[in-house]
Structure formats: structure tokens, C-alpha cells
């Protein structure tokens, strides 16, 4: 075997074996069988440290660490957890490889090269903070607070995000978790039931699960997966609408192989069938909904036949699904989705899902949408301040209303980016990136590069190098979730049919930070002092922030630690519709704002001839791009094979395992390649890849160039008109094999 062993690689593999192990036998007391010193010890004898809250993704399972001689060997679920239990997913288990990733940021760095082509010079924290503070302050002094834009993501970004929004006073904050992910879901449900829905469906106790694009199993959040599997084990039927035979479709009773972009038409047809055939929940509609008449009228055109044609699925299958839902209502779980920024017509689809839940009477009932009653813990952060609408890019001063009335909190990304690039209506001159990688969250990378090039100053704070950190002037190393206090996780037992319990857990460090990494409260406070906001600093340390917050429920870090990291208390019965609950089937405010008041299907652009629609989703072993450099996770799924329909593949001469690149309909080519997965399990008009691969930053020595960055191929922009969020599935690609561009047959 050709094995190009390098010093670093050797140390990577050998370091765990810790060469200091004495070469003597250890005899097991229980079996008498001698155990070689060469054998890995196993973690059973290691010290258990409590208080871990995972952040390999954002579900935040509760952990314990297994620590040997100061080194974190393993992460396990906290046995006391009523959420994830002892379970940890692949990413959670691989947290130790993030912690000790040799490529992690270690020291403050200054870019002495160009943005995008950096040359890094190690500098002191004092120099780094002085430069960040003075540059940001001069932006504020010269142009105003609104001249700073912020791209935050994750628990560590919350405190600094509040600082820039509240104390500094810029509206120009764009969270990828809202504007490129779940924001549309939240505001569409707020516009329908006055609540963000989360993923709060009572799956273990339902009779039917209804998924539009949800691919649980590839999308892994532990307690959510536990609920899903428990539901199936209890006999629930599963309906999955997806152009692809996803992990969930493989467990489904009915797979609806829907044409991408037409989901709203499908849901409207189901609802219309229920209405026309008197199969909706009349009592619930009478008691708890508003606007039924207008709603019924608006969706009337959506006959089974019309939707069947539009969605490219059999009419009788739509009927079968509608009948199944009606027969089992109200104990049906209509999944609100999580990542929903798809086609730029998404607000209406999310409204349709909320309305479907309503006419089935599936709110607050067993097996329906049921928000478990968790404990309330007060957050501690920067004091809120009103900065008016003057510099709010999402405000139309002539009409005196928001441009995107159903925008999630923050400012729609495209408004910020366009303003930064054009300088209109005002200049944006500094950019703060905290834990987000806008290069691989926001479509059209060229525009993002243009944004950075228009800045006077760019600073990034992260744990790892990413594709965006290459654009920083100053790059600051942050402690990871395993080395700091911060997030307070709260919730209930995952199965609502079990004894009602609530829990509170606070993130505590499992090991000490290494190198010169600092936490967000330290970094942000030091910036605030230098920007003239020292008097507004709410807490001196991150520990104080957590302790103050816990004090609101008569807890403390010390107390939580004494309780093995999780405080458990009696819960409350979540079932029963609140008296003031109302489902706005027809929402007059939406109509007044100039958009359809009843859920409405808006068509999306069709494939140009010779192109396939590019769709993408989650890999179970990765959280988007964030985990790509993790040695264990990379090894588990080293690239993101592109799914190509088997008949299409045969026609264009592709076989399983071929290496291909891509070109999109705007002529943008992928810079890397991936392999082909030939399968009958995808429609002919689209291709599918896992999201987040193809990192371009060479400082990610494991993840760089692994697979294809599908975001690089998403150049055509779609903006959801009600919310201002991005739609990213209106891009089309051809495959390139051996330099030859292959037309996708129609």
C-alpha cells in the first residue's frame, strides 16, 4: 500500500495511543484474561465531567465528557437527560475531533495579504482588539452605526449580535438560520397561528406523519428522531413528498415523488379535496379559525386533476393522502419543516401547511402540533434600545411600512448586500462575521465577495478557518462549545405520553481552553470598551451571564453542577386548545400588505432545456459546512455524491462512481468534482447533493476540495416576496465528465 505517512498524520493517528503507555500486561480482575498495554484502554475508567451542551449542530443535546489526564477522550449523552438520553449522534461523538483539530484557529491573526488571498500574521490580543475596536469605531463615527453589517450564527454569536443591534445600533444583521433557513417557516406560522411552530409535532403519539421535503434520518436531531421512530413503531403511517427517495421516503407508506417547487399546489389540492368533500374538522374550523369562506373560495381551483398535472403525480395518490389524513384527523402530524428557503414561493407553502393542520383540527391534540410546556429562563444580554426606522433597509419611508412585512428578525440579506455593494441608500463600510460562513450560506458567492471588497474593515470570529475567514482583515480564535459556558438549554421529555417533566441545563466547559482562544463575552466586551460602550456592558464574564440567567429560576452553575448538569422538575400537560387560539385561514393583513391572504401557489421557473434542477439537503454526519474538516466525519462521508436518475444516467453515459463537475445555467462552473450516485430514487428533472461540501480554504487540510460546494452553483437569486428570505432551488445544472458537458435529457 502506498502510504504517504507524514509527521503530522502520524501524530494524528498515534497521539491517542499515547506512546507513554508502559509495555506491561493489565490483568482483568473479572475475567482473568490479560489485556495488552497496546489495547486501547476504553473510556469506562475515565473521569466523567458533566455540563456539556453539544453544538456540533443546533439541537443542543446534553453531554458528559470522558476525560483522561486532562484530555477529552469521548462525549456521551448525559444519562440524566430526558431529551437525548445517553445518545449522541455521529457529529456529537466527533466533537472531540473538533476540539483537537490541528487546523483550529489558535491565535489572533492579521491579514497582511489581500482579502480572499490572505497572508496571516500572528498578533497579540491587544493589537487585534485595538485594531478591531478602532476600525469599527471609525466606521460608526464617519458613517453611523448602520454602516456596520453583521453575519452571526450559533450560541456564541448571540451576545455580540445583541451588542451590535442594541448598543451600537445597526439594523444590518442577517442570521443565516433565519434568512437562508427556517425564518420563513416561523413568520408564516406567526401570520397564521400567532406562534413560531418549531418542529413541535407530537410524532410518538400520532396516526399519520406528513412530511414535505423533511428527510429525517439524513437530517438528524436526536430527540426529534426519537419521536419520529417511536411514532413509526407505534404504527403511524408516514407520507413523504420529495422528488428524491430520501431516508424518510424509505420508511414511508406513501412516497409522493413531487415535481420540485410545486408543493404548495399539492397541499392546496389536499385542502380543497377535504373542503369539497366535507372531510375537514368542522367543529374546529367553527371554533378556532377565521376566514374559512375566503380560504375555501381561494383554493377552489385546485382540483385533484389540476394539482396532479402541476405536481406531476397521480391524482389518485393525492386523494389517497387526503383520505388518509381525514380518516385519522385530528391525530395527524403535519411537519412544519426546518430548512424551508427553497423556491422564493415558500411563505405561501408554509402558510398552507399551517392551514392544513388547522382544517384537520390538529392543533393541541394528541398526535398533532403540540408545543410542550418547557420552563422559562430569563436571558441576560445587552439592554434593548430603540433605534427607529431611519436606517432600516427593510423600511419603505414613503409608504411608512416594511418592504418585506413578514421578514424574520434582522434585515433581509439581499437588502444588506445590495446596499453594501452599491453604497445606496447609504454606505456600509465594516463587516463583522461571527460564527457564520456567508460564503456557503448565502447564494451567489460573487456578490458576497463584492460585499467584502466594498468594506473598509472585515473581522471574523470563529473556531475553525472557513471559506469566509479568508476575507477577514482580523481573524479571532474562539473557544469551542466544549471549553466555555453559555447556552442554557431547556425543554421537556421527548415523548409527551410519558410523565410530564421539564429540564434546564447550562453549557459548562468540559476541558480548559488551549492556545489563546477566548470566549464571546470577553471579545465583545473588549470591543465595546474600545467603541465607547463600556458603560453599557451587562456582564463582566460569560460565567456571570449564565449565573445571572440561572438566578431567574433560582438556580446557579454550582447548583446545576451538583445536579449532574441537568435540573429536572415536574412538567405540565401540553394538550388542550387555548381559548384565544386562532388559525387565520385567510389573513386580511397579508392581503392588505399586497400579498394573497389565503395560501396561494406561485409557479417557479421551469428547467431550461438540457439542465436539471439542483436540489440539496443534509448529510447525517455533517452540519452544513461547519464539520467538513472533522477527520472522523470526513472519513465517514468524504464527498457528496450527486444523485442522478438511472435512466438519465444511461442516456448520457454516466455510471455509478464516475467523477463529475458542474456548470450552471448562468455559466458558473464548479471548481471541484464529486462522484455520481446512479439511482432510480430521484426524478429525472433534478439532481441532488448534500449541502456544505467543497470547502475552498486550504487551511482546512482535511475538508478542502472534498466534494462540490453546491452553494457556488446557486447564483440565480430568488427572494421570497413576503419575507425577503432567499429561495435557492431555482438553479439548474449540467454535469461535466472528462471535460465534456452533458445535456440532461428532457
Amino acid at each position, binding site marked *: 500500500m502506498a502510504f504517504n*505517512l*507524514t*509527521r*503530522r*498524520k*502520524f501524530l*494524528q493517528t*498515534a497521539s*491517542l*495511543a499515547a*506512546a507513554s503507555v508502559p*509495555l506491561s500486561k493489565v490483568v*482483568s480482575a*473479572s*475475567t*482473568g*484474561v*490479560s*489485556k*495488552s498495554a*497496546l*489495547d*486501547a484502554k*476504553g473510556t*469506562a475508567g475515565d473521569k466523567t465531567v458533566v455540563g456539556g451542551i453539544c453544538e456540533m449542530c443546533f439541537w443542543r443535546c446534553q453531554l458528559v465528557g470522558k476525560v483522561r489526564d486532562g484530555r477529552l477522550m*469521548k*462525549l*456521551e*449523552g448525559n444519562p440524566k437527560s430526558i431529551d*437525548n438520553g*445517553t*445518545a*449522541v*449522534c*455521529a457529529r456529537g*461523538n*466527533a466533537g*472531540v475531533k473538533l476540539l483537537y483539530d490541528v487546523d483550529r484557529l489558535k491565535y489572533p491573526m492579521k491579514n497582511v495579504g489581500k482579502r480572499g488571498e490572505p497572508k496571516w500574521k500572528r498578533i497579540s490580543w491587544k493589537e487585534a482588539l485595538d485594531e478591531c475596536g478602532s476600525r469599527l469605531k471609525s466606521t460608526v463615527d464617519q458613517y453611523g452605526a448602520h454602516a456596520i453589517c453583521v453575519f452571526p450564527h450559533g450560541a456564541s454569536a448571540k451576545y455580540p449580535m445583541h451588542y451590535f443591534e442594541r448598543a451600537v445600533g445597526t439594523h444590518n444583521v442577517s442570521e443565516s438560520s433565519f434568512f437562508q433557513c427556517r425564518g420563513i417557516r416561523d413568520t408564516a406560522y406567526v401570520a397564521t397561528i400567532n406562534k413560531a411552530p418549531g418542529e413541535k409535532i407530537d410524532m410518538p403519539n400520532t396516526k399519520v406523519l406528513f412530511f414535505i421535503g423533511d428527510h429525517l434520518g439524513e437530517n*438528524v436531531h436526536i430527540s426529534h*428522531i426519537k419521536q419520529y*421512530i417511536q411514532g*413509526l*413503531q407505534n404504527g403511524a403511517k408516514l407520507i413523504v413528498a420529495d422528488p428524491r*427517495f430520501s*431516508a424518510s*421516503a*424509505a*420508511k414511508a407508506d406513501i*412516497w409522493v415523488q413531487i415535481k420540485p417547487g410545486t408543493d404548495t399546489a399539492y397541499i392546496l389540492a389536499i385542502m380543497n379535496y377535504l373542503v369539497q368533500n366535507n372531510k375537514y374538522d368542522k367543529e374546529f374550523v367553527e371554533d378556532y379559525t377565521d376566514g374559512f369562506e375566503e380560504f375555501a373560495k381561494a383554493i377552489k381551483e385546485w382540483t385533484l386533476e389540476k394539482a396532479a398535472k402541476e405536481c406531476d403525480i397521480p391524482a389518485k395518490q393525492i386523494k389517497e393522502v387526503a383520505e388518509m389524513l381525514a380518516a385519522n384527523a385530528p391525530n395527524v402530524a403535519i411537519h412544519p419543516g426546518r430548512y424551508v428557503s427553497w423556491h422564493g414561493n415558500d411563505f405561501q407553502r408554509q402558510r398552507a401547511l399551517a392551514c392544513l393542520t388547522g382544517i384537520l383540527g390538529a392543533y393541541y391534540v394528541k398526535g398533532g402540533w403540540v408545543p410542550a410546556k418547557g420552563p422559562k429562563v430569563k436571558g441576560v444580554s445587552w439592554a434593548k434600545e430603540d433605534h427607529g426606522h431611519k436606517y432600516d433597509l427593510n423600511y419603505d419611508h414613503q409608504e411608512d411600512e416594511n418592504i418585506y412585512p413578514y421578514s424574520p428578525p434582522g434585515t433581509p440579506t439581499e437588502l444588506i448586500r445590495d446596499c453594501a455593494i452599491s453604497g445606496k441608500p447609504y454606505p456600509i463600510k465594516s463587516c463583522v462575521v461571527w460564527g457564520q460562513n456567508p460564503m456557503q450560506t448565502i447564494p451567489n458567492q460573487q456578490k458576497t465577495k463584492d460585499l467584502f471588497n466594498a468594506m473598509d474593515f472585515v473581522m471574523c470570529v470563529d473556531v475553525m478557518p472557513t471559506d469566509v475567514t479568508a476575507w477577514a482583515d482580523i481573524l479571532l480564535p474562539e473557544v469551542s462549545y466544549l471549553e466555555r459556558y453559555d447556552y442554557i438549554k431547556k425543554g421537556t421529555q421527548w415523548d409527551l405520553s410519558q410523565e410530564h417533566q421539564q429540564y434546564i441545563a447550562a453549557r459548562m466547559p468540559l476541558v480548559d481552553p488551549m492556545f489563546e482562544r477566548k470566549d464571546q463575552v470577553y471579545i465583545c466586551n473588549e470591543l465595546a470598551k474600545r467603541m465607547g460602550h463600556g458603560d453599557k456592558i451587562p456582564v463582566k464574564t460569560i460565567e456571570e451571564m449564565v449565573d445571572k440567567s440561572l438566578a431567574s429560576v433560582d438556580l446557579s452553575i454550582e447548583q446545576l453542577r451538583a445536579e449532574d448538569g441537568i435540573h429536572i422538575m415536574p412538567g405540565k400537560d401540553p394538550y388542550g386548545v387555548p381559548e384565544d387560539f386562532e388559525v387565520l385561514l385567510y389573513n386580511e393583513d397579508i392581503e392588505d400588505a399586497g400579498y394573497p391572504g389565503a395560501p396561494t401557489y406561485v409557479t417557479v421557473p421551469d428547467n431550461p432545456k438540457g439542465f436539471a434542477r439542483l436540489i440539496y439537503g443534509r448529510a*447525517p*454526519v455533517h452540519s452544513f459546512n461547519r464539520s467538513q474538516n472533522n*477527520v*472522523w466525519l470526513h*472519513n*465517514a462521508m468524504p464527498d457528496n455524491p450527486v444523485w442522478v436518475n438511472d435512466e438519465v444516467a444511461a442516456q448520457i453515459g454516466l455510471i455509478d462512481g464516475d467523477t463529475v463537475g458542474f456548470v450552471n445555467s448562468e455559466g458558473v462552473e464548479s471548481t471541484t468534482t464529486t462522484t455520481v450516485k446512479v*439511482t*432510480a*430514487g430521484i426524478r429525472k428533472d433534478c439532481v441532488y447533493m448534500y449541502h456544505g461540501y467543497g470547502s475552498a480554504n*486550504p487551511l482546512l*487540510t482535511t475538508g478542502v476540495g472534498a466534494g462540490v460546494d453546491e452553494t457556488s452553483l446557486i447564483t440565480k437569486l430568488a427572494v421570497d416576496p413576503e419575507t425577503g428570505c432567499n429561495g435557492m432551488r431555482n438553479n439548474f445544472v449540467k454535469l461535466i465528465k472528462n471535460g465534456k458537458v452533458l445535456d440532461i435529457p428532457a
Partner: protein
Amino acid sequence: MQYGMIIDLERCVGCHACTIACRAEWEVPVPYQRNWVKRLGPTMTDYGMTATYYPGLCNHCDKPPCVDECPAEAVDMTFTDAKSGKTKTMKVTATWKDPFDGTVQIDKDRCLGCGACADACPYGARYINPAQADDISEGKADKCSYCKPRVDQGLVPACVLTCITDARIFGDLDDPKSAVSQYVKKGAKGLEVKDGHIGPNSMYFGKKKDMALLFADYTPKLADMGSVKRRAMMASMVKPAMRKAKEIGVLGLAGAMLVKGLPENDEK
């Protein structure tokens, strides 16, 4: 007693938690593995569109073909039953099937790292771990031990502990009341070889279509024992030389020298 593991494919979502937990627990270096998850399909089968997973690991077979091939010198070893305290002495090479719990284990000190056992395993469940090299080998055979050191202490295997859907069930197949035995009664099956009966004790349970796809794709054949035996013979021939090296060398020193001498071409 015969330990066994059931993997319930109705519960499994293919998330890889089991494989990564195993890496952490037993310090299994990339790219090697003690267990794996392969995704099967989606593909059209007689039962319609199908996709499932092959979460694989050592089968701790009733008649493990790997054990017979070990060329290491056989020595007397006394085994003690972790539960009853009974003992039994038998002649074993560097790998054996435990007389009490039925698991297949390896003595890393006497393993020559020749790879004959790995070649003999029809499931590819063994590999040579270079991180366990010493002065008589370039690494040691390694594989799933059913987490014996944990199980002997009353803990569950690491993969079972971490499984997010309780799709992995561990227990005694000889105990008719155990959860694993209940699964066998319901139809759980091991991936028995096409051309023999070795009795795999890691078993799968699932929907008909998923089981059909798994068994169609991953039912193995016995290895070509001719080539396995040649490798084992070669290993036993060089054994005396390795023994000699053992008396001189110390791993720590050799390791340190090796690291010093390695190129630094990936440090940027």
C-alpha cells in the same frame, strides 16, 4: 452463553453515531473501522423502491474462520466467567472464541500483525491497526470486541449506548428471555455465508424489502483459504526474527525516532 447484537433496521436511520462512538471509545484510527454503516439503494426491487442500511461489525461467529488461521504459537490460557466465576483452561493462539461469553477476542501482545485473520473474515470485520505497532509487528489485528471490557463491567457496548433510536440491542442469545432472543424469534437473521455455516451472531431485523436488499447485497462467501494460509505461513516463518527484535527495541524510542524522520510536507 453467547453474546449477540441485533440491529433493528426499522429503527436505524443510518446516522453513523455507532461508528463514530466506536472510534472514540477504542481510538480506532482513520481510515480503519471496527464497525461501519453502508447505505443501500435507493433501488428498484421486487418489493418496489427500496433503501436501507448495512450497519456491520464483527459477527463473533459460532465457528469463526478467523480464529483457525492465526499462526501465533498456541499457549494455555485460563478463562474466567465474568458472571459465575467458573474457570476453563484451553490452548489458544493470538485470537480465540471465549468459552464463556462466545465473543471473539485478540491478544495484542502475541498478535504478529500478519493479517491472516483479516483475510479469513468474510465480512471484512478485521483490520491491522498501525497505531498498535510494536517491535514484533507493524500493527495488530483489531476489530469489534462487543466492547468486552465494558460489558464485563456491566456497561453496554459504546455503539449501543450512543444509538439514537435504540436500533442496536445487545444481549445473550442463549437466554430465551433476552431481548435479542425475542428478536430472533421475530425473524432476526445474521448474514450467513453462501457456502457454509459459520453462525454469525450479529443479526438484522427489518421490513421484508429492506432485509431482501441487505441480504442480496451483502451475503458473503467464505474467503479463499489457500491464500490466507500462505500468508499465515509466511508470518510464522519470520516470527523468530521478530522475537529477537522485541528484545532490543522499545516502542517509545522507535516511535519517537520514526516521527523525527518523517517528512513535514503537509505542514503549511
